[in-house]
């Protein structure tokens, strides 16, 4: 029994050591000096001529983040981007995973209990708003929006909901069709996850369907909604030899790679052009070969903009009077290998698409000119050329 107790004590001790390391790694806000990509974290850009206060001069804040996860490409980039902003703004971020609605509510309760000043969350639900109100914690929706009228009413009436910032998925759907049409493709297929699985994909599909309506001579050979996307494309390739355009509404997590593989195995290279979302492995190669004509991505900087809106409220200078109205931002679109190379250097590289100073310019306390209009201006200008022109000097 003594041996048993000893081994248990030893094991539990080990766990607690691991846990302590985990806690420390989460709480560590020190700067990194290596020049790694965003998966390893962004470098803090030291600007001695900056007109904005340094992190050390700012009051500390604590912000919780609720997202599906932080290990996939988008989730990992969001985490790195926010950790970078944490160093620039003296903000400690607590990242929590949530998949179901129940988990978003539990996560909100736990983060409030942890003592955060604000929360950035993918979902915004009535009960989360209620809890944020009770605790006096600011709540900002990121990479998503609510369309439920009752929830929007609660958001409009709330003193603590600061807004919703997301990409314009509908316009992205329209753009995919228009691009293929402009390239001369007239026989297309489109593929998306099943309806109801993800609101952003549903919005993209709405955009696709509306854009198709505009073009009378555009022939939709088939469409598929579900998880067996590669198999569906394989069937389409066998059934419709005239297929010259393929639209896939996104494939984060390896989906796009399987589409590329089917295109290769079915001999679609040179016959059909793909338009899709979510930049990943193989994107550069496929853009170069021409199989991929249009790809959208670069969503993670949106969280930096959402953070700016939240931070304004936390420091007492709110800039969003209409939090119930979604702030839409465009996707970043890549159409060539050059675009991709610039994307890897200027977006996924060592410096984030918006530096600390650029985000500080959106904070009214630091810049009296900061406003919702300026936030929208950032969005309107967002493109690979925009980032290159702003950050070219930082890489020289």
């Amino acid at each position, binding site marked *: 029994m003594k041996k048993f107790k000893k081994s248990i004590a030893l094991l539990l001790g080990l766990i*607690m050591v691991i846990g302590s390391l985990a806690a420390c790694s989460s709480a560590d806000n020190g700067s990194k000096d290596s020049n790694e990509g965003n998966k390893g974290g962004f470098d803090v850009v030291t600007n001695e001529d900056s007109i904005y206060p340094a992190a050390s001069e700012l009051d500390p804040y604590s912000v919780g983040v609720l997202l599906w996860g932080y290990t996939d490409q988008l989730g990992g980039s969001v985490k790195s981007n926010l950790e970078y902003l944490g160093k620039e703004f003296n903000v400690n971020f607590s990242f929590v*995973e949530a998949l179901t*609605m129940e988990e978003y509510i*539990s996560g909100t309760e736990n983060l409030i209990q942890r003592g955060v000043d604000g929360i950035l969350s993918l979902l915004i639900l009535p009960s989360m708003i209620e809890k944020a109100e009770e605790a006096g914690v600011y709540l900002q929706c990121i990479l998503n929006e609510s369309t439920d009228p009752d929830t929007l009413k609660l958001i409009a009436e709330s003193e603590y909901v600061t807004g919703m910032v997301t990409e314009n998925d509908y316009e992205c759907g329209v753009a995919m069709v228009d691009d293929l049409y402009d390239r001369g493709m007239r026989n297309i297929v489109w593929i998306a996850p099943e*309806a109801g699985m993800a609101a952003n994909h549903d919005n993209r599909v709405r955009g696709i369907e509306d854009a198709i309506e505009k073009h009378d001579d555009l022939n939709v050979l088939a469409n598929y909604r579900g998880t067996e996307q590669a198999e569906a494309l394989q069937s389409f390739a066998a059934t419709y030899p005239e297929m010259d355009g393929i639209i896939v509404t996104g494939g984060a997590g390896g989906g796009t790679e399987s589409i590329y593989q089917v295109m290769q195995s079915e001999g679609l290279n040179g016959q059909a052009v793909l338009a899709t979302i979510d930049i990943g492995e193989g994107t550069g190669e496929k853009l170069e070969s021409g199989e991929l004509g249009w790809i959208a991505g670069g969503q993670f900087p949106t969280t930096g903009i959402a953070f700016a809106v939240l931070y304004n409220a936390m420091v007492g200078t709110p800039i969003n009077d209409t939090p119930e109205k979604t702030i839409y931002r465009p996707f970043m679109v890549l159409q060539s290998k050059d675009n991709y190379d610039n994307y890897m250097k200027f977006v996924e590289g060592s410096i984030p698409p918006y530096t600390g100073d650029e985000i500080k310019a959106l904070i009214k306390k630091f810049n009296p000119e900061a406003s919702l209009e300026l936030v929208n201006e950032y969005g309107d200008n967002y493109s690979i050329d925009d980032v290159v022109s702003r950050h070219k000097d930082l890489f020289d």
Partner: protein
Amino acid sequence: MDGNGVLAKEREEEVMIQEQLIAKTRKKEKLSMIIPFFGIIFITVFFAIVTKGNTLSPSNLNNIMNQSFSIIIVAVGAVFVYSHGGMDMSVGAVQGLSSVVVASLILQGAIPGWMVLPVSILVGTVTGFTTGAIHVTIGVPAFVVSLCMRYIATGITRTATSAKDLYIPYNDFSFWNKGMIKLVVLLLVIGIGYIAFKYTRVGKYLKAIGGNKITAGQSGINVKKYTVLAYMILGSTVGLVSFFSLTRTGVVSSSTGQGFELDILTAIVLGGFPLSGGAKSKISSAILGAITVAILTNGLILWGADPNIINGIKGVLFLIIVYLSYERRKGEVVS
């Protein structure tokens, strides 16, 4: 020393050995009662220390109650199924289905407010009855039937939410989301479940079926009837939870209930409940397991653990807790 003296001494030694064995057995029994609480006490104390008492504050205890509410209630229902050696993998999907039915009726104004809860319980009970009845009538293993039920229920939920998520008027039902109401419901369910499982023939027969189905049948127990009843009890708790979950989230989506069956299974196993069923099935095991999961998740977040390794830490801790239970029952956690 004559022969009688030797005999007397031998008897004395025998009695001493017997007494020692009895004392040892009693000690073991006492220990077996304490060990299940060891894991939960340890993590409670640990997180209380590292979060400087934050985990034990009244508001956080309310959070833990809210977060473990659904798992505890369904775990109580699941005890009736697992104690007879059954298994139900449709719990999460049935929660989604029940929520969809109720939300649709609310949105169409088809039922008055007071009927929402009974209808939700009814949907759960009917699906539980269907699973149990197919299992005992056709003889298909319960695991397979419940998997089929899972696909059917998920399909209905996804179809109903494909156009848009179903939002109910949140404020109309927020009354049910209050901590005190939930606490009363929780205590009622635990109380009724405990009495039904320990003191009524339902619990006793189900344990007997779990111990040996053939013997139970030969002893006059209507195995089919009580098996179906077990699934109906579980279904009713799922229906109850669906209602409260709906009042908490205010919305039904295709993800409603997703993964819930695994939460229940984790709670059952963590509490040291024997999945083979039988006489050693205890309702307290399932409740302890459910509370452990909630305390651990809550504590790790309040402590500030990195999200990427929270699951790893949870996994190792679960392993240790199950190991404690395993040691206690010599392989009876899973037969």
